């Protein structure tokens, strides 16, 4: 039955809880990430962003607050061309950030899982 209104879910994020551990880990892997001041230069210049609504700044901000939904698929639009890293006025290593974000978000990805061949073929 439709009463003409719905009860909305709480939309607030608890910053001290959501994704805190993951964020700290990411910041450790990509220390320059802490320097971001959200100027949007990266999104403006983004090669993929010229074709589709990919917004790298939004993606990493969502990650900051532990909002992981669909972020991995979003990140796969990146072509890793490096323009964002080149224009960033704070010197954030965005290419490294993107790869580390994808590693963190990809459930199937185990660190070093691509080395199986080497282990099997050793010597």
């Amino acid at each position: 039955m439709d009463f003409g209104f719905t009860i909305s879910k709480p939309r607030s994020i608890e910053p001290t809880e959501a994704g805190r551990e993951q964020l700290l880990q990411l910041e450790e892997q990509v220390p320059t990430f802490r320097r971001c001041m959200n100027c949007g230069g990266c999104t403006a210049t983004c090669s993929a962003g010229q074709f589709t609504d990919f917004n790298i700044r939004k993606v990493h901000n969502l990650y900051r607050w532990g909002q992981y939904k669909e972020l991995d698929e979003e990140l796969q639009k990146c072509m890793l061309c490096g323009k964002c890293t080149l224009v960033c006025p704070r010197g954030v290593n965005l290419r490294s950030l993107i790869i580390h974000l994808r590693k963190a978000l990809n459930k199937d990805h185990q660190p070093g899982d691509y080395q199986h061949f080497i282990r099997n073929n050793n010597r």
Partner: protein
Amino acid sequence: MSDRTTTAQVAVIGGGPAGIEAACALSNNGIRVSLFESEPVLAHNVGNKFKLFPDFSSASELVATLSHKLSGSHVSVHLDTEIVSMEQKGGLWFLTDNYGHTHEAVAVLLATGYDVFDARRKEELGYGIYKGVVTSIDLESMLKAGKLVNVLGEQPQCVTFLQCVGSRDEKIGNHYCSKVCCVTAVKQAIEVKKLSPRTDVFLFYMDLRMWGQGFEELYREAQEQYGIRFVRGRISEAASTFDDRVQIKAEDTLVGQPLKMSTDLLVLMVGMEASCGTKKLASCCGVEGAYGFAHSCSPYLSDNMTDRQGLFLAGSCKRPMSVSDTVNDARSAAVGIADYLKTALSN
């Protein structure tokens, strides 16, 4: 003593607002002062401006007042004279100029000021490549001439300002804020609107720093009375459109949406860098600080002093500074130098 050598109690290097103000203040106290300016004119950086923030007073009037004050004093002024090196021997400073002449002084005031950032180093913004891209200095002379036109010589439909060009930028190595560009941009935006009320004016910023008296009010005025649109985002590249306008790419970070828009003029708010003279003389005396600026003893009680005896600093050779701060700083330097001379001469 040869005729190529001059002597003074104080040598002031740099004939901008800081140099002139300090020289006049010292001279009025009966101190013999020489002032050296590498350019053929005094105060060329301020002289290039049209109006000053935040009260829109005339920059050329300020320069005229300063020049008048200087010509009424006993300061010996050396225009077109660049000090290329200096050294201290037995309590005296020996300054060598570009003609090879030597000048002696008991104390030296470094007031060598700033240069504007060379916007061509940010090639992605297209300065020097697209005619529609200008710097804030270029815009100032347009405003001074009272003629604001786009590339085709028509009244511009849209003027866009971009903050922080050459400041707060890791990539070109200037991490600092140039301090005056925010309010200058607001001032210029208002001037554009006054000159051409139908022009759309956009101002792209990362942070707006309205730190001085009257600045915040100016910002409000720009929003309320002049309808200037402030966009929080950094323009990261510019390109040319087929009709010679400038296409810019930025993100409105508050919406989270990329913007791609055309504008007739893109005004780059170029920051301040240590001038060539500042860099050269500061390193010559061993007082160079970060980014090539000169380093004072302490920013609190001895901001005009350096680690070298008898070497003083004033104005934007230390850090980016507004005109009013520069003039005040020059006066405080004059007081410091007068004190120093008393002890130095009594010994």
